[in-house]
């Protein structure tokens, strides 16, 4: 019986809002141009992550793709990070192009702005998916066949939408309360759909790499490629192993010192030593393995936190106010046909802005549990709302009631 690893990595950076006061809102329309060694300086961050993660990881991945005919992977790359590569690190974009040109890397569809638009405005959501597809086509020359939504947020309605839109696959979290007696190691079909298939993240195995790999307090530290392959080999009842994680796992979340790059280089070689073992892109997995069951997820599930819901983005009143304020402007913003204004409005929809306003860890004093470029969620919120006030001013200037 053959089995395949479906390695899927997600590449994303937001345009972070600089420190932006109500006085700034009256005087300048630039929200994303922080300078210096500020954590809101997007150029500084993209350079840092490029050097620590994107460049060295792509070196390893390209070598694997060239050395191992069987090695394959899938990638999603948000529009906002592609723009930042184009602006500041074209070399990184070139290295991704090189990966894709091997023909063994599948690019996954998503919203251009890494937004939660699906839950607020279907029209806007579809516009952003279209923008992303066009961007991927122009940068990589390929058209995505599989869809993932921001933060792997998923529910039955989204699956139906993706089915109607013609995608052959969609991704979600393999969350135990949903799976019940089943496991994430098979191809499934979303309830109420015709053609689309669903792949579910194997979160334990994925998080062993993404979160625990360098944790010296973890009982399985240090994790070797041999051990990891052994875990997979000894799993019965599996067609596929869906290793889904942030691309920045390699070099950024897990620093080079943890040995993550050596691991990444070693474990595919080891896995492929057995002729039973393969790698598959998401589309290949859907084509090659049988559909085992129907999955029903009426409530929205994400890949975040122990709650696996959207509470890290929309759980408190500030987040709810901020996102509602932004989407309430949609018709007025679109009716201006002002490209700059529409662009700024869309960049403010990126989910990271709302994540920075999350208070659920901050209140426990466990502020290191999440990453934010701001001193506090309240500062993140005020910068965002002041940017919103500037959108309002720009609309007022063209005679719209705000």
């Amino acid at each position, binding site marked *: 019986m053959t089995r395949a690893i479906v390695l899927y990595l997600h590449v994303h950076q937001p345009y972070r809002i600089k420190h932006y*006061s*109500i*006085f700034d*809102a*009256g*005087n300048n329309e630039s929200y994303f141009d922080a300078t210096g060694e500020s954590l809101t300086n997007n150029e500084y961050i993209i350079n840092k992550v490029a050097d620590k993660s994107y460049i060295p990881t792509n070196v390893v991945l390209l070598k694997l793709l060239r050395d191992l005919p069987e090695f394959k992977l899938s990638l999603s790359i948000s529009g906002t990070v592609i723009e930042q590569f184009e602006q500041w690190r074209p070399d990184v974009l070139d290295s991704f192009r090189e990966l894709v040109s091997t023909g063994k890397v599948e690019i996954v569809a998503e919203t251009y702005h890494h937004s939660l638009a699906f839950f607020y405005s279907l029209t806007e959501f579809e516009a952003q998916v279209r923008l992303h597809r066009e961007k991927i086509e122009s940068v990589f020359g390929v058209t995505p066949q599989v869809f993932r939504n921001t933060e792997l947020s998923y529910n039955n309605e989204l699956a139906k939408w993706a089915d109607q839109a013609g995608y052959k696959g969609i991704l979600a979290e393999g969350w135990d309360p949903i799976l019940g007696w089943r496991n994430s190691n098979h191809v499934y079909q979303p309830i109420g759909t015709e053609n689309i298939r669903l792949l579910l993240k194997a979160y334990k195995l994925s998080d062993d790499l993404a979160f625990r790999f360098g944790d010296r307090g973890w009982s399985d530290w240090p994790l070797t490629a041999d051990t990891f392959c052994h875990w997979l080999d000894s799993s019965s009842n599996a067609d596929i192993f869906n290793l889904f994680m942030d691309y920045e796992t390699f070099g950024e979340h897990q620093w080079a010192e943890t040995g993550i790059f050596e691991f990444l280089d070693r474990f595919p070689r080891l896995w492929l030593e057995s002729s039973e073992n393969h790698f598959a892109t998401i589309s290949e997995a859907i084509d090659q393995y049988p559909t085992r069951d129907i999955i029903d997820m009426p409530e929205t599930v994400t890949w975040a936190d122990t709650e696996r819901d959207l509470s890290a983005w929309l759980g*408190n*009143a*500030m987040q*709810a*106010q*901020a996102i509602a*304020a932004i989407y309430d402007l949609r018709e007025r913003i679109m009716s201006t046909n002002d490209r700059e204004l529409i662009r700024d409005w869309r960049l403010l929809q990126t989910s990271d802005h709302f994540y920075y306003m999350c*208070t659920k860890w901050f209140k426990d004093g466990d502020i290191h549990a999440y990453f934010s470029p701001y001193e*506090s969620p*309240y500062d993140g*919120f*005020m910068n965002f*709302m002041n940017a*919103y*006030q*500037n959108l*309002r*001013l720009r609309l*007022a*200037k063209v005679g719209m*009631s*705000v």
Partner: protein
Amino acid sequence: MKVIMLGWELPPHNSGGLGVACYGLCQALANDGAMLEFVLPYTAPNQCDFMKIRAALPVNVKRVTATGNSYESFKYHHIGGKTSYHDLFGHQAAYEEAIANLTFDDDFDIIHAHDWLTFRAALKLKQIYDKPVVLHVHSLESDRAGGISGNSLVHAIERLGLESADKIIAVSAHTKQKIIHDYGISEDKIEVSHNSISPDSHSPSLDDENCYKVILALKKQGYTVLVNAGRLTIQKGLTNLLRAFARASDHNPKLLLLLAGSGEQRDELIELAAELGASRNVFFTNFVRGNTLRDTYSIGDLFIMPSISEPFGLTPLESILHGTPAMVSNQSGVAEVIANVLKVDYWDIDKMVSQIINISQYPNLQSALQDNGLYEVRRMGWHTASEKVFEIYGQLMPATRATQ
């Protein structure tokens, strides 16, 4: 008449009303012939033409600067280049010691100290020079704590000071009653001298140069602008204002609230505004001063000071001088000296709501309130306070001479 004034701040380096009031009073006293030496706990950046300003610095410290916008942290620049940071209590104690190390000509008549931060220093000077002490109460710990118990160390210092002082000046009848209530001080020992304002130093100024461009644009679309300027702290009653604002917004969605200030309650207020569904129309700034403060006053349609306990409260008067009428709580000293403002109890959210709606609906009410308020404020000045203070100095002088 020679007076040693002990104060914690003066403009332009003030965090609130205390420095402004000290400055206004001193100017009037000097005008009426008093010779003043004002001792600050930090290095004053500029001098003043009507009194001598000195800094009382700890030993081996060449300069002290107040950091941040509130008087919470102080940076010591030591001789030799080192720096260190000190909190309010540490700096208050250091000021007391530093005062003792300063040399004063022995021919002064009165020690006049403003608020608890300088009370111990005043008693120290009294010990050394045996001169009468006047304690001037601009606010009490129970005001600042906003209805909760406050800091017991500050209470102890206030009690010691008020019991030991030769005379106490309260900035309002409200404050006098609180001194009696909180510390059981005899009524005869306390005189009321209301704070005031120099009307000529302000003028209305709403124009297109106003720095609140967003609010200006919304105002042109018919929004009514409510303003508060002050520290974001429990004493100021701002949670009640937010609740009133949210409820009034249900009746008239075209309302804006500008909260200009900084303080430890900021995050709580930001969160409360969100919970009330009002974030879109509530604006937070940081601490404002100078032209920004001027613009803050003048952008408003109504200035609201809903303080739980406000010993005096200068901001509504400043607001009126900038063309914006005011609503004040009955629990404020300023309510004792002006008639043409809207007055509410700080807890009376219902009444705040209806007054806010009235102001937003009836421009005539707004302009009548402003015109009549301005008439009153223009007649104010520090000369009345100066006369009163001279009278109190006079009461103390013969008694001291008699003991010598």
